[in-house]
Structures are given as C-alpha cells and as structure tokens.
C-alpha cells in the first residue's frame, strides 16, 4: 500500500486539477459594474446585478450567462422618476422584481461575441441577441430595448422614450 501511495496521490492531484479546469470558466461579478440605460428622457442605471457567468473564449459551446438585475434599484437621478419607474404603471417592481437574461448560445462574431438568449422583463420573455466583447476581464455589451415589446406602459407610448440603449460593463474576477 505504502508503495502505491505516491502514485495514488499523483492520480488524485491530477484528477483534482482537471476539475479546476472546469471551474475556471466561472467568473465572479466585481462590484464596480454598470448597467446604464439611456433613452434621452429617462436615463439612468440599475444595480443589484447577480447571477452566474460561465465563459471561456476557447469553449463557447459550454459558456453561459444567467444574470439578473434588481428592478427596485433603478436610479434615474430623480426621486419622482424612480418612484414612477418602479410603480405598476411602468416596471412594476413589486410584481416583477427582476429583469433577467439567460443565454442559450454564445458564438464568435467579428472581434467580439454574441450571446443569444431570453430577456425576461415585466413578465414578458423575448429572444434577443446581445453583442459583447471580453477584454481584460471586462465584459462590455450594448443593446437597444423597446419598452413597448415588454408591455411597459403601453397606454402612454409617447410618455418618455420607447427605445432605451442599454450599456453593460461588467468587470469580473475568478
């Protein structure tokens, strides 16, 4: 038994190191991320970004995003607008507390990548494509979201912008 101890130990270490290879796809979201939206009026940002980011540029097939933001964390810089945005007339933070994105497929696109998946907002699920780059442990992406597609205050289509440009900047660490 003693004779085989080192061989077994080496095998265990080798096996464990293989698992660290699998885990290395997972990234932790750093605190200094930003999820900003801009439709002219309103403009602002969300906080409360949570979820799992599994990404390996060399293994896109097994890469996946499942992230969400806290609707109640919306900040437009104006207290009244924040209250309106969280109300049932707009995003209804009480009934739909999260806006989430879950990727189905990540592919290479030009110098960056594209994540195809489902954006769940205000109780409506829609398939979207999120183009992004991954450089220096920072995910950067930008999409346009039309609030009318997600039944957000459809009664007042001209009250504030319909299409919001959403800029996402997420530094990550292992």
């Amino acid at each position, binding site marked *: 038994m003693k004779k085989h101890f080192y061989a077994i130990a080496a095998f265990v270490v080798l096996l464990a190191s293989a698992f660290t290879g699998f885990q290395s796809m997972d990234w932790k979201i750093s605190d200094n991320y930003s999820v*900003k939206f801009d439709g002219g009026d309103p403009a*602002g*940002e969300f906080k409360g970004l949570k979820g799992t980011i599994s990404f390996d540029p060399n293994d896109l097939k097994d890469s996946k995003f499942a992230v969400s933001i806290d609707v109640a964390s919306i900040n*437009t*810089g*104006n*207290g*009244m607008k924040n209250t309106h945005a969280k109300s049932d007339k707009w995003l209804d933070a009480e009934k739909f507390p999260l806006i989430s994105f879950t990727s189905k497929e990540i592919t290479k696109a030009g110098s960056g990548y594209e994540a195809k998946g489902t954006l769940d907002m205000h109780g409506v699920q829609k398939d979207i494509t999120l183009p992004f780059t991954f450089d220096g442990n920072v995910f950067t992406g930008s999409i346009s979201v039309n609030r009318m597609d997600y039944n957000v205050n459809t009664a007042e289509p001209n009250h504030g912008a319909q299409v919001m440009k959403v800029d996402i900047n997420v530094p990550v660490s292992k």
Partner: protein
Amino acid sequence: MFKKDFIQGIIAGILASIAGIIYSRVYFFANEADFSNIVNVYSIIGLNLAACIVIAFLHTALLKWIKKIAELIFNLSLSILSFALIVIPLSITLPLNVQFPELFPGLVIPMLFFPSMAWFTLNPFFSSPKK
C-alpha cells in the same frame, strides 16, 4: 434707499445661511443621505446671499416704481416665488453617483423658504414706521 435694503439683504442672507447649514447637518444625521457634492456650506452661503441681494433689489425697485402698494406686491411676489421654486428640486436630475435622490427634495425644499423667512423676520427692524 438701496443702502438700507442692501444691509437687510446681507443680514438676511447670513441668517438664512446659518439656518441652511444647521438644517443640512440635521438632515444628514437624520437620514444619512449625503448630498454634500451638491448642497454644501459654500453653495448654501452663496445661494442664500445671492437670493437675499436679489430680494433687496426687488424691494427697492418695487418701492420706487409702485409706491402705494409696493409692500403688498413685494410680500405676495416673494411668497409666490419661494413656493414656485419647489419645482426645481422636484424636477432636477442628480448625478447617478448620488444615492437616495428621493431624499433630495426633503433637503432642499425647506431651504427655499429660508431667504424670504429671514427677510420677513428682519423686516420690522428696517421698515420705516408708518405715520
């Protein structure tokens, strides 16, 4: 004539500034909402002095132009103006790094009344006795 109003404006500005600084400190300790990069000692003193000097100009001008009912028009205008200014803190968009923008109007709205309150408080010391 303006000399008297100017002195009243300066003293009212100082009083309003003191009240504003005290109120901003009390508000900070009560709510722990920090708006010091927008509302701080310097901006409070500057804005209150400027407001009270403008009030002094307005008072002098009205007394010169409409002699009879100048005080009535002035008092009414100052009260309406102070009240109308409430729109500013309610509609202003703060930088996104400022937390709790919901609490900003609670800090600023009472302060909007400090210059006129200080002016009216000092008025008996500066107004000429009626004959």
